[in-house]
């Protein structure tokens, strides 16, 4: 038995590299997981893979976090399972540019996916969590919150998410709802596979533990926060120590 046994978790971006690991980690701790993602096939495959290890604990759901109707449907899906106890806002997009080359439309798109979507979903799940005596929201921020070259839109969105996390923790704490953030550094996923080799090499060289992050590194942090009732308003940076060294040392 863990604090997550029998709980319902909704994980957005659940079919992606990090999201899939989060779903697996929560299911391993006894939660029933709604694997929610934009890509129907990938979502079904991710849920099926989790279901093999943890029968009956994974449900696929197509979700577009930028679409209000889709968000409402996701919360309804969770309600049919008994109500969402844990919301993990993991869906995200990394495309970006230096400020001079940043298209306003891309800036807006990154805000919608990385910031507005998580806030809207939190608004939708909070009443149900409060009615059941509490819950947990874990937002996937990023080490880019601390500033990253060529990342104006992404860092703005993730910084906004961190700020909202802190204020939401104050507002929702009395209802027994914790709100925290995990800020991953460089993690080996399909989202980071496209990085130019020179940038990839320099990034890896600046990580004190000597390797890139793995999705499971992040998933463990998320699972911890999902079942830690006395931890709220915090940002857990999972970056192999890159954020305390010189990230541009290499």
């Amino acid at each position, binding site marked *: 038995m863990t604090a997550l046994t029998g709980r319902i978790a909704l994980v957005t971006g659940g079919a992606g590299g990090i999201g899939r690991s989060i779903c697996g980690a929560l299911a391993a701790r006894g939660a029933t997981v709604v694997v929610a993602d934009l890509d129907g096939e990938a979502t079904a495959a991710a849920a099926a893979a989790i279901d093999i290890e943890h029968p009956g604990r994974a449900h696929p759901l197509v979700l577009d976090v930028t679409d209000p109707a889709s968000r409402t449907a996701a919360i309804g899906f969770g309600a049919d399972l008994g109500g969402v106890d844990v919301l993990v806002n993991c869906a995200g997009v990394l495309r970006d540019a230096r400020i001079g080359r940043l298209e306003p439309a891309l800036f807006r798109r990154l805000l919608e996916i990385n910031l507005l979507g998580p806030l809207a979903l939190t608004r939708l799940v909070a009443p149900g969590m409060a009615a059941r005596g509490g819950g947990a929201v874990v937002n996937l921020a990023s080490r880019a919150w601390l500033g990253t070259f060529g990342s104006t839109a992404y860092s703005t969105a993730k910084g906004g998410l961190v*700020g909202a996390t802190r204020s939401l923790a104050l507002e929702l704490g009395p209802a027994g709802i914790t709100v925290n953030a995990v800020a991953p550094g460089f993690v080996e996923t399909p989202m980071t596979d496209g990085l130019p080799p020179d940038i990839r090499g320099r990034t890896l060289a600046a990580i004190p533990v000597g390797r890139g992050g793995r999705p499971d590194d992040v998933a463990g942090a998320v699972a911890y926060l999902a079942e830690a009732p006395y931890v709220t308003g915090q940002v857990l940076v999972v970056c192999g120590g890159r954020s305390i060294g010189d990230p541009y040392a290499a």
Partner: protein
Amino acid sequence: MTTSTLRPVHVVGGGELGPLVERALETVDAVAPSACVVAPVPRRAPLADLTDARLADEVAGSLEAVLAAVRGELTHLGSGAQRGSGAHRGSGGRLVFVLPAEPLMAVGGGTAPSAVTNGVLSMARTLSIELARDAVTVNVLAVAAEESSGGTDPTASLTAQLAALLGPGGERITGQEIYLTAGSDLGRLRP
């Protein structure tokens, strides 16, 4: 809006702290092309009241306004970023973001203003890295309101910090976040 000093300091962004910044700049002599971005920050509201439309208008809209204000100042600041060459080295300038300290630190019912102020904070952190190649400094001043900082008028403190950042010697100060709160934030974790 432009305030005349030794060099004109552009005050842009349209946020509520604009008049305070204008007053604080009256006796500041900028030695390089400078701009102060005063972010428009939405008012506090319970999470339940943050409709999709409000999130779009107040959170995304405010952040878009800040982005537009900064982009509009890049040439003035001497940054090559606007020209997009990547190889250009600008002549240097000073960019200061002025934010209200309370939502930056976190406040109950402050989801929207905290999202905006912290979004701007991270934007400033990234810009301090990006614009360093152009010798443009980027800093953040977080100003507590008079009523939340023991009734002390923040104008003189803001003037002092702006003078340091925009005046002689300021070229070596970048990526910093300075809280002008009269100690009202002591003992709290900063973002």
